[in-house]
């Protein structure tokens, strides 16, 4: 065991882990964070707190993580390299650990072009893989990136993201290998609709034994409407939504579509359970946190194990 992270304990014990997501509000509204947290109590092992997602300014992931911790949840603190230099990131990691946060996800972040401040600089002092290396060095060597000693090293369980659906496909396994070599302990993937393609990626992953070096959590998202399905298919870079899914959503009347979206999500989880190397699930139900309980329950993943 590298850390005291609850997520690590669950994965190390061999259980299928379940994580979900909470997007902080676009204002100083702590109650909104608590409200989302309440839907996830006892349902998931950790809650990702996004960091200025889609380059839109929101309450900081650090602050929102602390609020969730106070509500008795286990926050998974996300940090993107787009907005902070290495000094600020190391400072935030020390602060997060001091406030009881021990699990984090290292990401590059969406380009500012997509957000509400396209005029801002994209910092990227370091990239996501260098961030993983940096956090590992802080944890395992007790050293800052610059080399000086840290008094009170943060024991973070280090996560990263993987996208089996981005191009070029042949690089996607290599990139995962790089993240693991840099020090990633666990991975959450982009949401999966094209299970065949995911299976193909996992074949490459398992062939290199990467699933044994790192826990892989498969990402899923319930679709709310056929419009949402089409949007994700055409407008979101790096997402693969097969036409059958869009057609299936379109085949039911509007009022029934949310139900259909949840059914697809649960079926996807059931299929993914059978894929070698899958260590858990990451359910991204953006602005639909109230449905996570139903999904986890129908997928046979409740109650959550006690460790």
């Amino acid at each position, binding site marked *: 065991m590298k850390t005291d992270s609850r997520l690590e304990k669950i994965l190390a014990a061999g259980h299928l882990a379940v994580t979900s997501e909470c997007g902080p509000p676009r204002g100083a509204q702590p109650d909104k964070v608590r409200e989302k947290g309440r839907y996830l109590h006892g349902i998931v092992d950790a809650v990702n707190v996004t960091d200025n997602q889609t380059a839109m300014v929101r309450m900081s992931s650090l602050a929102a993580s602390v609020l969730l911790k106070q509500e008795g949840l286990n926050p998974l603190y996300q940090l993107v*390299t*787009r907005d902070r230099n*290495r000094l600020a990131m190391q400072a935030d990691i020390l602060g997060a650990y001091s406030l009881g946060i021990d699990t984090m996800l290292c990401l*590059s*972040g*969406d*380009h500012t*072009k*997509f957000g509400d401040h396209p005029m801002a600089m*994209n910092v*990227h*002092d*370091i*990239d*996501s*893989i*260098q961030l993983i*290396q*940096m956090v590992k060095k802080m944890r395992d060597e007790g050293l800052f*990136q610059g080399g000086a000693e840290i008094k009170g090293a943060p024991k973070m369980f280090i996560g990263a*993201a*993987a*996208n089996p659906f*981005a*191009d*070029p496909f042949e*690089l996607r396994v*290599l*990139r995962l*290998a*790089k993240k693991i*070599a*840099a020090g990633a302990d666990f991975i959450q993937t*982009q949401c999966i609709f094209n299970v065949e393609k995911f299976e193909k990626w996992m074949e490459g992953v398992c062939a290199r034994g990467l699933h044994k070096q790192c826990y892989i959590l498969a990402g899923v998202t319930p679709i709310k409407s056929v419009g949402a399905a089409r949007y994700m298919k055409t407008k979101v*870079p*790096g997402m693969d939504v097969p036409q059958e899914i869009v057609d299936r959503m379109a085949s039911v009347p509007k009022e029934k579509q949310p139900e259909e979206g949840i059914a697809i999500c649960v079926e996807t989880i059931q299929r993914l359970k059978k894929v070698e190397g899958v260590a858990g699930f990451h359910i991204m139900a953006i602005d639909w946190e109230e449905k996570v309980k139903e999904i986890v329950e129908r997928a046979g993943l409740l109650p959550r194990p006690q460790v």
Partner: protein
Amino acid sequence: MITAERKPLEELIEYVRPYKRVLLVGCNECVTVCAAGGRKEVGLLASGLHMALLKSGVTIEIREHTLERQCDPEYVEELVPMTDGVDAIISMACGCGVQEVARRFKGKPVFPAVNTKFMGASERQGVWAERCQGCGDCLLGRTGGVCPIARCAKQLMNGPCGGSTGGHCEIGDDVDCAWALIWDRLKELGQEERFVEIMPAKDWRPGGGSGPRKIIREDLAE
């Protein structure tokens, strides 16, 4: 080369409006190549300014001259006789040239006529694209000759990110994914193992991280 684009005429008209006699100076190097500030563009701008001001009843005398380049004091010195009686100088050179002219002619207001953009190369006639950001520690030998700092929107050194689609960057179909290009080149060169090597966090000091940069050649400088 350094690329630039002429500022909107509206802005330039406001710069020169208060003056009776201005000197418009072009540069024969980079801005000539990207058709922004060479001899021809000096002629076009002088004509345009003259006409725009004439319309509102303002007559202005515009002297035109193009230097070999404006970033060397020896060339800027050639302007001395031309600045006699001139109220202001407008430089069509990149920011480097404008500043050298301003430094030499402290008593005259100096205005930039172009917006300096980036260091780049010509993709085809009339199209120039960014290629280098002067990071001071060139790593092109490791990336098959494609720069991830200048050409990746997130300057990733261990790319590509999850937004790379069909060889394009997530920010748009008109931008290549630098890491897709790098991967293709490494494959062609049989250097795939370079992709697997992790590039550690960059030291940005050579790239301007420790302030405005200078090169001093001891063998050449007195």
